[in-house]
């Protein structure tokens, strides 16, 4: 953290990054999803943790996600500067230096893995380390700029938190943990491709081989429909396991049918129709996809909350 900027009067208004700028490096919006899904994974597990251990586990999973987010911002500063959606991020906007983002990312990654291992168990710590490696190296450094399947494979990084939460509590991986992982993994492609359809200039300008750029927009619409169809059995299947119950099954059926209707509407549209209403359908499906994941995991949580009253679960 160099002092050079503090004495740099070239612009007349020297600027030092505030604490909030470093928080922004951690991608707080992504982190909120990580916290929520990891918390659900931990709470629906059949083994309980002491509240302090549970709090520490969620905190360090979130910090690990934040560390990998900082590493992603360090590596992707060049393309973030080009894209409208990302050019205000701390590194491309100049509020934080790239080296600082790297240092914050590495420090948080190391601390979070070690502390999660000490607070819970080594398997959870190993999974967190793998997740950080997968997001920062496999996705950011390799897949993102080399293949249109970047978010399909890279989506695994965002899918691990509920599994890590489950493993933190139980010490092992089970079918329920795998299905929570698979739910986010299969949800990621249609979620991001819907975004890519209406943020079309961004990825093209940055040279990121998003499916919309490499295979065209019609192919992307087909892919959204196919992946939504593949997502359906995962969502409904998860509701049939030990973490589910009648409520989550009902929620899963409604949500998946709703998502499918949206995917079909996207598939049936062409660019002329989309341009005419400023991508209204694509934007509504993208917004719904966020709600889809939130309600799915909320339903799992509700099953646990209802169990003491003899209502939740199978």
């Amino acid at each position, binding site marked *: 953290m160099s002092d050079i900027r*503090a004495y740099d009067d070239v612009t007349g208004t020297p600027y*030092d990054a505030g604490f*909030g700028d470093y*928080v922004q490096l951690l991608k707080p919006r992504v982190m909120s999803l990580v916290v929520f899904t990891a918390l659900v994974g931990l709470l629906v597990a059949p083994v309980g943790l002491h509240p*302090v*251990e549970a709090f*520490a586990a969620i*905190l360090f999973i979130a910090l690990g996600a934040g560390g990998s987010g900082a590493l992603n911002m360090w590596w992707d500063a060049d393309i973030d500067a080009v894209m409208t959606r990302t050019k205000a991020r701390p590194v491309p906007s100049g509020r934080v230096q790239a080296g600082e983002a790297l240092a914050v990312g590495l420090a948080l990654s190391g601390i979070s893995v070690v502390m999660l291992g*000490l607070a819970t168990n080594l398997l959870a710590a190993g999974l967190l380390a793998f997740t950080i490696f997968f997001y920062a190296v496999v996705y950011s450094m390799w897949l993102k700029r080399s293949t249109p399947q970047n978010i399909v494979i890279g989506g695994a990084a965002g899918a691990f938190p509920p599994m890590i939460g489950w493993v933190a509590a139980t010490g092992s991986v089970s079918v329920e943990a795998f299905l929570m992982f698979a739910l986010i993994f299969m949800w990621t492609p249609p979620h991001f491709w819907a975004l890519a359809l209406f943020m079309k200039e961004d990825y093209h300008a940055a040279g990121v081989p998003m499916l919309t750029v490499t295979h065209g927009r019609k192919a992307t619409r087909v892919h959204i429909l196919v992946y939504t169809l593949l997502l359906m059995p995962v969502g409904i299947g998860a509701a049939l396991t030990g973490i589910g119950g009648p409520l989550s099954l009902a929620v899963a059926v409604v949500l998946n049918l709703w998502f499918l209707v949206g995917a079909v509407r996207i598939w049936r549209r062409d660019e002329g129709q989309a341009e005419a209403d400023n991508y209204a359908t694509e934007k509504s499906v993208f917004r719904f996809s966020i709600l889809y994941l939130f309600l799915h995991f909320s339903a799992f949580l509700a099953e646990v909350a209802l169990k003491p009253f003899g209502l939740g679960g199978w």
Partner: protein
Amino acid sequence: MTFRPEHDLHRRRFSRNLGLGLTLVAFVALVFALTVVKVTRGDPMKGYDHVVDPQLMPTGQAEPAGAGG
């Protein structure tokens, strides 16, 4: 030349320093709380060698002292 506390640098970095300070205090508190939980809810073993101590086991669960005992 002294580096006085009222230097402009301190004002501009106040947010960063305060945030980092509070984060470190919270981290210490969390590690302390975790330590208390681990120690009070830990397995019946000695902390320094992680070897089960028969003297700490509930009555009747301790291993016999030897094959003939």
